[in-house]
C-alpha cells in the first residue's frame, strides 16, 4: 500500500514539475511569436512607408522634369503620333 502511494506521489511531483516546465516553454514560445508578429507589423508599416516614398519619387512633376532635362524628351502631339486602329477582334475590348 505504502509502496503504491509512494509511486503515485513521485508521479504527481514529476507531473507537476513537467506542467511548470511546459508552461514556461509555452510562454517562451509565445514571446517568440509576439516578437515575430511585431516584426511583421514593423515590416508592413515599413512597406507602406517605402511605397509612399516610391510614389513621392515618381510624381508627375519629377518625372516630367527628369524626362525633359536629363532625357531630353518632349511631349508628343497628334502630329507626331501614328494612330493604329485596333484589330476587329480586340476592338470590342478596347472600347470598354
Amino acid at each position, binding site marked *: 500500500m505504502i509502496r503504491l502511494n509512494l509511486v503515485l506521489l513521485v508521479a504527481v511531483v514529476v507531473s507537476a514539475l513537467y506542467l511548470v516546465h511546459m508552461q514556461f516553454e509555452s*510562454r517562451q514560445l*509565445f*514571446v517568440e511569436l*509576439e516578437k515575430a508578429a511585431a516584426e511583421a507589423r514593423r515590416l508592413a*508599416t515599413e512597406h*507602406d*512607408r517605402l*511605397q*509612399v516614398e516610391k*510614389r*513621392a519619387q515618381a*510624381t*508627375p*512633376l519629377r518625372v516630367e522634369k527628369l524626362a525633359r532635362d536629363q532625357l531630353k524628351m518632349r*511631349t*508628343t*502631339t*497628334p*502630329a*507626331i*503620333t*501614328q*494612330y493604329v486602329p485596333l484589330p476587329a477582334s480586340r476592338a470590342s475590348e478596347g472600347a470598354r
Partner: protein
Amino acid sequence: MSRSVLYASSPLLASKAPVWRSKFIVAAMALAFLGLAGRAAYIQVFGNAFFQRQGEVRFARTLELPANRGRILDRNGLILASSVVAPSIWAIPEDIDRDPAKLQQLARLLSIPLAELNRKIQDEDKTFVWLKRQVDESVALEIAALGIKGVYQRKEYKRKYPEGEAAAHVVGFTNVENIGQEGVELAFDKDMAGRPGSRRVIKDRLGRVVEDVGEQVPPVDGRDVQLSIDSKVQFFAYQKLRDAVHSHKAKAGSVVVLDAVTGEVLALANYPSYQPEKRQNLSGEQLRNRAITDMFEPGSTMKPITVAAALEAGRVTPQTIIETGPGKYSIGGFTINDTHNYGALTVEGVVQKSSNIGSLKIAQRMSPREMWDVYTALGYGQKPQLQFPGAVPGRLRPWKTWRPVEQATMSYGYGLSASLFQMAHSYTAFAHDGRIIPTTMLKSADPAPGVKVFSPQNAAAVRKMLQMAAGPGGTGQKAQTVGYSVGGKSGTARKQIGKSYASNKYRAWFTGMAPIDHPRIVVAVMIDEPSAGQYYGGAVAAPVFSEVVQQTLRMMSVQPDMAVKPQIVVQAAEESF
C-alpha cells in the same frame, strides 16, 4: 558508598502527565490545519474573484490595437494619401538628465531652438510634456540613440501626401489625431478611419507578453478610397493653371475636368494651393477649394443654356434671325450693351459672337418659369450631388420674383450665381446628348444614365454653336487644340464688390468640351482678377482650356478627330547608291 543518580528511575519520569495535555496539542494542531483549510477554501472558492482580480491588476494589461487608416488612391491606384509611422517625442521633466550637450543635440534633432526645449521641460511638477509630435522615423531613431533619460517615444501615424499641392484641395488633410479635416479626408473619414481593436494579455516581470487572456477584438482597418481623379491630369491641370495665374498676374484660379461619359471628376485644381504636410501659416485664400465653394455670376457661359432652353421649347431654331442692332437695348430703366453692333445674327451667331442683346431677345420668347425650369434641371441653385464638404448651392431666385429686366440679365448670366463646378456640371447636358449626368468623386466604370433636359438634336445643335464660338470668328479661338475639335464658351464678368460692379476687377473663364461630336471630357477654367493687361475669358482662360484638353485626351488615348498634318515618316525611304 557512592551515591549514584538513577536516571532511568527519575521521579520526573514516573510522574504521570495528564492525558488532556497531549489531547490539547493534537486539538491545537487540528485547529491550525482547519484554519489553513478554511483559508484555502476562502481563497479558492469564496474570495476567488477578488484574488483573481488583484492578480490581473498586477500582470494583465489591455493592449490597444490601432487600426490603419485607409489610403486614398487615384483612378489608376496611385497613392494620393497614406499613413506612415511618425513617433511622437514626450518627456517627464522631473526625470530628464540635464546634460547641456545632449539637450543641444536633442533640440537640433527636433529642429526647435534650445531655449524653447528648455522652456518645455522647465516645469518639474509636470509628469508629461510633448516635445514634438510626429517626427520622421529616422529622426526618432537618432533621438533614441542619444539615450537621454526621461525622454520617451510614442508610436503615432502621420499622413503623407505624395502629390503635394497639386491635389491638396481634393485630398484634403487630417489633423494630428488622424481625423479628417478637409477634402476627401473629411468626406470619407468614417470609411477610412477603421475601428481599433484590443486584446487582454499577461505580461511578465520584464514586460514581455506571455499569454493571451479573454477575448480579442481584432482591429478593423479603414477602407481604401479610390477616387475618380487621375493624378496625371490633376497635376497637369494644376501646373497649367499655376502658370496662367502667374503670367496674367491673377489672384487665383480653378480648373475642373469632368468625364463626359461617366460623370467622374478627373481633376479639380485650385491655385493658390498649399502643401498638405506643411500647414503652418495657412491662409483661407490657400485653403479654399474655389471650384466648389466660390460662387460667382456665370456671365456669358449661360448663353448656350438660354439658347438651348429656347430650342427645346421650340421658340427658335439655330437659324432664326435675331436683330441685335444697334448694340444697345433699354429695358426697365437699364441699358444693356454689346461690345460691338453685330446687326442681325442667327441664333448660332448670338452664341458665337456672345451677344448680350441677342440672348436677352431669345429669353424674351420664353416665360420666366420655362427658363427657371431648365436652369434648375441643370443644377443651378442646387447643391451639387458631390461627396465633398463645403459645396455651395449657388443662387437662383424663384421665377415668380423675376422682373423683366432680371429675366433679361439672367439670360446672359447676371443675377444668378454658381460655382465653377456647377458650370462644368451643367455643360455635361450638352456633352451627353441632352442628358445631365450625376458627378462623382469615386471611380466608376459604368456610363452614367443621366436625366434628360434637352433632346439629342438640340444638344448637338448647341455643341455646334460651341464649336463655332471656339472657332474662327468666335470669342474663344485660343481654345483650339491640335487634332481635337473643341467647343466652348468664354466668359468675362466684372466682379461684384459690395452692391456694385468693380470697374477694373474681372473674372475670366472658359467652359467647354472635346472632341465635339462625341465629347469625352468637359473642362471648365476660371481665372480670378487677371491684371496683366488681358482679362477676357477668351484670352486668359481659353489657352489653359486648350492645354488641359490636349493633354487629357492624349492621356485617355483618345484618337484625334481632326486631320493633322503628320510630321512622322512612316517608312524611311531607301537610299540609293
